[in-house]
């Protein structure tokens, strides 16, 4: 395999709430993303998946651990060159397109902001051309450039968010729950668009979501998070055909299938961390097969497999 594009090693992200209480949102998570692939992060709310996305793009300062992106360490103090590289090569698509687009700016200026900051447009005409080309790429028409975000529907707004992320031609896009606020029929449109763009530009995605069927559809590899620990990771085939960790199993069993006869007879497997007797802090990474890893103690690993 080639060099990983992003390498996260033992990432920890703590938020001190008061002198005596610290929220440990992410507890030593490691994963790698290779160029052009899609890595899916799944987990329930509060499992730390959004925090990881935000730490990776340095919206937070990681408490501990190492993040290597594009061959450069982007933890701790960054030089201006590293910062420039990070801001250009890594972009983010947010969950709620209404909240993440500036309502007082026209779409052209929202999309073109990165071009302006990084001086990537040689002239006004060049800037306008780049913007209209980007709009076409995400399935909007160039005339939309003069409109404001509120004049769009939810799906179109998310397309503007995608256009803003892609105009810098990034190598990694962090998509944080970018389809969960959309309707089912629109979700499929946006996911198809993201796939098309990936084929065309070869960018990698860190796809953060709680909708497992969509994650399975779009991702090449998946990491399952629970309470700030990566409990299981592997390719999507490994995770879905052979879930090992009880949390992953309960997560998979909870996905509703659009099949009434099956669904009516099926009961979800429940998993309660407090009563299960599992202590994530004592677990170590065990290799199941290939790239399939699970967090467990030796005894637990023996009993699960």
């Amino acid at each position, binding site marked *: 395999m080639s060099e990983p594009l992003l390498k996260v090693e033992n990432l920890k992200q703590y938020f001190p709430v008061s002198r005596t209480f610290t929220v440990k949102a992410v507890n030593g998570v490691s994963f790698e993303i290779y160029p052009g692939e899609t890595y899916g992060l799944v987990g329930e709310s509060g499992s730390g998946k959004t925090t990881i996305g935000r730490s990776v793009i340095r919206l937070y300062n990681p408490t501990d651990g190492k993040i290597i992106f594009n061959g450069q360490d982007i933890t701790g103090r960054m030089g201006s060159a590293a910062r420039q590289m990070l801001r250009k090569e890594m972009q983010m698509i947010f969950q709620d397109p209404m909240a993440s687009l500036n309502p007082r700016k026209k779409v052209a200026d929202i999309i073109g902001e990165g071009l302006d900051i990084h001086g990537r447009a040689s002239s006004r005409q060049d800037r306008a051309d780049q913007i209209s080309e980007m709009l076409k790429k995400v399935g909007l028409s160039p005339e939309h450039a003069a409109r404001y975000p509120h004049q769009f*529907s939810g799906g179109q707004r998310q397309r503007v968010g995608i256009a803003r992320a892609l105009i810098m031609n990034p190598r990694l896009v962090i998509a944080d729950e970018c389809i969960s606020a959309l309707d089912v029929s629109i979700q499929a449109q946006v996911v198809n668009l993201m796939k098309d763009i990936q084929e065309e530009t070869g960018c990698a995605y860190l796809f953060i979501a709680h909708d497992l069927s969509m994650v399975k559809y779009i991702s090449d590899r998946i990491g399952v998070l629970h309470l700030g620990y990566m409990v299981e990771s592997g390719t999507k085939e490994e995770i879905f055909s052979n879930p090992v960790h009880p949390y992953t199993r309960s997560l998979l069993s909870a996905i509703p299938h659009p099949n*009434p006869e099956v669904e009516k007879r099926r009961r979800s497997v429940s998993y309660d961390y407090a009563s299960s007797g599992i202590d994530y802090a004592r677990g170590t990474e065990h290799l199941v097969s290939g790239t399939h890893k699970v967090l467990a103690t030796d005894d637990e690993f023996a009993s699960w497999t």
Partner: protein
Amino acid sequence: MSNTAAPEKILDIRGLDISFRTNAGTVHAIRGVNLDLCRGETVAIVGESGSGKSVTMKAAMGLLDSNATVNAGEILYTYTDEAGTKQTVDLLKLPKKTLRQQFNGQRIAMVFQDPMTSLDPTMTIGKQIMEGMFLHKHMDKQAAKARALELLELVGIPDAEKRFRNYPHQLSGGMRQRVVIAVALSADPDVLICDEPTTALDVTIQAKILELIMKIQKEMKLSVIYITHDLGVVAKVADYVNVMYAGKIVEVGNVNEIFYEPLHPYTWGLLSAMPDLDTDDDRLYSIPGSPPNLLHEPKGDAFAARNQFALVIDEKAEPPLFQVTPTHFAATWLLHPDAPKIEMPPELKARLERAKKEADKYL
């Protein structure tokens, strides 16, 4: 679940037509909706946001916004009053006060989408559960408390005695939604309306809450209406499904008919757009375009513009509901005897075959 010979109709919505006055003009949000709910059954209303599924149920609860006008239609509700006689009333004709005092909460209760906004942050959950009992049942405090503790246990909250004095912010999202359900059940309603009850929750908790509602439904012989856009949820809970699009019901049927033999192109689209765990096609099917703006009344079939199977007539006249089986209806011209024979997309067909095979294993 309907084991009696003739299921008793409890809620009967006929020709409901609602429009909203807005600054931009009149929005014709509901355009002739018919819906039946029988005792002990579960009916689901599926549709995209803006299709009018919530508005329909809000009309039944008398919760319509002040800019709404009911142009036509009736919502007939049948119940047994205190004296034991059967009564049928039109909920739209009742004065708001009567509706509030005698029906809302007491006979028809609602579970809302977001448990954080539907609970009062300044009241303990115990108080909120007892509130309905004081108002509707005139219970004394001791009886109410006993019943509230019973309800908390019923909805699966451990340590009910302790939780009784908690405030909503002290509970997790799943627990809060359980409290909302307990509040809804506090006055022993006949009908429970669940408006996207699990959208704000995680998948694991979603499954728990749905199983809980199903269990309670059986125990208390409730009739439940689900409003949702998640077809997975529908498959799990519903007996009958109404698919709604642009203020109209475009397909009705029992759950097996809708999931195994869908007839309306919109239903095909909805089913195809949701990847199941075996989907490995390169592209996900998506319904092109977006729902119509009801500010401008669509001419002909509202779905025609997004429908790859649209016929010429779709742009001229609205299709009536064609009956296929005693329970299955769909509003599409494709079912007209003169229409060309058009099959559902092959990918969907293959998937439904797969689903049927899987289902056969359980039969």
